[in-house]
């Protein structure tokens, strides 16, 4: 049934509504694909029985004429969304036995709209990573390894590596991810798919295992911009259980895909032109500029002066918040425990054993930058710089409607390439982190292939709560670059 998995979300939705195929058939096709693609290690848990059950319920509704917006759509769920009755690990040994009795708001809304859960996607531990190499459940293989005939295993990016690889490999029609500093966009770029990080506050964080509270956002990873728009419409919405959730109405994001960007002002920030960025990425960026220009947009040079400080700012704020958010993992109420006779020993050894190296590193950094004597120099300083970074965007957006940049500073790299060099790993997020710090919506579109035949992404950043412009511009880019991507084909 390889045809079924080739359909994108909008197409499958139509096929199911038109009763060309049943939700059950679609789900079964995906479950089989997951089996064939198991070696990629995209999933930590598979929920086959549940998926079939949900698909059958979708079919019943469709039969009785009560179809829901996402009925029968098989999706993967990043394993940091708490799913009731289903193992939720956040990629960590610490939660390797954790089955929540509650459902995250975002996934609740997806099931409310009829979507089908295929399984929980692999991810970097506690969302800390850019290559999905810190998961307790093993690394994920980028399907482009085989597609582009690479000898060494390529990483899918991270932290939503499992989600991105699954969508790219056709093991899931779409997947949810989370983006704190680039964790949806960068893997989307590495895997040649679409990844959308909405504005901060657009989607509820209730029930998402928290990494950095002021940055985390849920978002879709899909094959097309239209699919992302459809999924976001279901995922988004004000949640009174999340105090940081914005009380703004959710439009039908699909309607933003007018294909018309005439008169749209596209900013090109000069500070994103970095020394050392491969020329093919510069070339892709140029291509993107030309595409939008040809479509009637005007190109404006803008400056975001504090761009280069975004990464160090992020690597103070995110670990600081994480060090506090991860304090609850103490072996007392849930999760793993290393039994000891003394309480302090129990804390120390449980957390020594339950957390991986990268997580421990970030907790230590975070603890340090918040500690007495260092708070002002680090954390407070970082929050001031963050304010300046946001101000840069606010000022630029007085003259433009969206910004165009590359998504990642490289193509997907081999799995052992950035070993032992955390900073090199952090640099993967250089283009994605600034929008995270400012809370702005941003999308990554597959822009083309590198010389080695690997996907490269283009990023559109928009104003706060203006996902519509982001989707519109992204759609136009996709239309022009889509054929390049199609040519590469899938397995």
């Amino acid at each position: 049934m390889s045809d079924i998995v080739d359909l994108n979300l909008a197409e499958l939705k139509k096929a199911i509504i038109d009763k060309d195929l049943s939700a059950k058939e679609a789900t079964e096709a995906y479950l089989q694909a997951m089996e064939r693609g198991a070696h990629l290690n995209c999933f930590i848990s598979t929920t086959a029985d549940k998926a079939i059950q949900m698909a059958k319920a979708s079919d019943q509704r469709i039969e009785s004429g009560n179809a829901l917006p996402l009925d029968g759509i098989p999706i993967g769920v990043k394993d940091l969304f708490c799913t009731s009755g289903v193992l939720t690990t956040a990629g960590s040994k610490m939660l390797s036995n954790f089955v929540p009795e509650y459902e995250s708001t975002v996934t609740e809304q997806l099931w409310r709209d009829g979507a089908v859960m295929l399984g929980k996607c692999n991810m970097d531990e506690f969302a800390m990573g850019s290559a999905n190499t810190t998961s307790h459940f093993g690394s994920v293989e980028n399907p482009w390894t085989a597609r582009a005939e690479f000898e060494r295993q390529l990483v899918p990016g991270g932290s939503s590596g499992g989600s991105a690889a699954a969508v790219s490999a056709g093991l899931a029609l779409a997947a949810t991810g989370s983006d704190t500093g680039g964790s949806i966009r960068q893997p989307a770029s590495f895997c040649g798919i679409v990844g959308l990080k909405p504005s901060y506050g657009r989607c509820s964080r209730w029930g998402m295992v928290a990494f950095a509270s002021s940055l985390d956002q849920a978002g879709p990873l899909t094959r097309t911009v239209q699919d992302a728009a459809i999924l976001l419409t279901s995922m988004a919405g004000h949640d009174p259980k999340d105090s940081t959730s914005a009380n703004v109405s959710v439009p039908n994001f699909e309607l933003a895909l007018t294909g018309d960007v005439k008169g749209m002002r596209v900013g090109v920030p000069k500070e994103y032109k970095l020394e050392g960025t491969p020329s093919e990425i510069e070339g892709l960026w140029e291509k993107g500029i030309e595409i939008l220009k040809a479509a009637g947009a005007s190109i404006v040079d803008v400056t975001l002066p504090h761009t280069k400080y975004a990464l160090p700012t992020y690597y103070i704020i995110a670990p600081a918040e994480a060090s506090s958010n991860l304090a609850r993992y103490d072996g007392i109420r849930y999760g793993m425990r290393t039994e000891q006779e003394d309480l302090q020993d129990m804390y120390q050894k449980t957390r020594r054993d339950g957390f991986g190296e990268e997580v421990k590193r970030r907790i230590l950094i975070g603890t340090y930058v918040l500690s007495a004597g260092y708070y002002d120099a680090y954390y407070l300083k970082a929050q001031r710089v963050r304010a300046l970074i946001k101000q840069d965007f606010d000022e630029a957006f007085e003259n433009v409607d969206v910004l165009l940049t590359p998504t990642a500073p490289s193509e997907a790299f081999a799995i052992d390439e950035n070993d032992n060099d955390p900073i090199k790993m952090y640099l993967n997020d250089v283009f994605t982190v600034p929008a995270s710090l400012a809370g702005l919506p941003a999308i990554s579109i597959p822009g083309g292939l590198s010389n080695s035949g690997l996907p490269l992404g283009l990023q559109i950043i928009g104003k706060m709560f203006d996902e519509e412009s982001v989707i519109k511009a992204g759609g136009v880019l996709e239309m022009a670059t889509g054929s390049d991507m199609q040519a590469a084909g899938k397995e």
Partner: protein
Amino acid sequence: MTGFIEGRTGTWEVVIGLEVHAQVSSESKLFSGAATTFGAEPNTQVSLVDAAMPGMLPVINQYCVKQAIKTGLGINAKVNLKSVFDRKNYFYPDLPQGYQISQYKQPIIGEGKLTITTEEGEKEIGIERLHLEQDAGKSMHDQHPSKSYIDLNRSGVALMEIVSKPDMRSAEEVGAYIRKLRSIVRYLGTCDGNMQEGSLRCDVNVSVRRIGAELGTRCEIKNVNSIRFVQQAIDYEARRQVDLLENGDPIDQETRLFDASIGETRSMRSKEEAHDYRYFPDPDLLPLEFTQDYVNEIEAELPELPDIKRARFISEFELSAEDAGTLVEEKTTAEFYEILSNGRDKKLSANWMITELFGALNKSGLELNESKVDADAFGDLIDLISDGTISGRIAKDVFGEMFDTGKSASSIVEQKGLRQISDSGVLTVLIEAVLSENQDKVAEFKEGKDKLFGFFVGQVMKRSQGQANPKLVNELLKEKLSG
């Protein structure tokens, strides 16, 4: 205790500051919708948020914010229209999140003050700030040989932490401060002030110094839950510090516990390291903001507070400062008095309430709201005294029976025929009988033994089973004997 300690080498002054944790009288917790009632079965008042499950988030309780503002107004404090919630990070089993949501640099309420009255007179005690924070759960260390048991019912309950300036100088002042603060929050209804149930807990900061010297090193005595224990702890701790200093030893700045069974403070072992709480603004919340209009609305709804009421009782009702103070200490007492004295003699009402009613309540261990005699019923008794139906002497007996049985004053007076005899004719007959039976004494009186007048009055009263109107008896007897 005057507050000065005579040491071996001279006089020392005790300096005390108090941090009072007052549990907000709300239905649900500060950041979660779980219930707050005292004494529930373990872990039955715990939401997923309170248990700090992965992905859980705080949402603030509007009512708790209002109560904090009310309390701030009640202590004449500055209300900050913008305040921030910070995380106070540390590890302890009864702190599920691994941090407490509190307020650090920008609390909701700023500086304030309240007035206390002690034997030495009135004194103003400064208040540094009031902030909102989460309470922790409860750990029990005596249920199992090698384990401690954790109950999270209390985890997340709203507390107002009220920090005084180090303005107190004696255990007596501290007692007065706690009582005053307790009285204010009970008046406002923001906290029930029940120290036995832990609704009001005190951390006491004690230091000593030579008079006029810089502040000494202080020790904090945590979680003392009765005024008596607070005072005992202060007395012990001040002595301990003086003894150390007079021996040339330094005071270690530390946290201590008060052991009520032996009346001593001791060092808390588990808090031996200097704490680094790594406070930072809670990123799951936004700054708390409200308008001055909102504060003004709240202020307009405040009940009359004890100090104002007391001043009014003194100036308008001409009660003594002491009586006024007694009547206003509890809101329910003041309300009772106000109903009782409405349209009646203010002083008479006050005297009877304080002497007879409070006396009976104390003796029987009952609270005012448990009394069988309510304000209206008591008022009826006062009326019978005022209009001369019964004498004060008889009224005491009538009250006793009212208190025990709940019967009305009138019904008791009727049933027992206790009406005061004010009929001059009847009284004259009694007087003549007494005088004729005691002619020798009458003779002695006429010769100058004035004291015997009282004897005659007494006899008349006896003959009338106490029901003779004493004033009238006095008048008539005077007439009779002068002739």
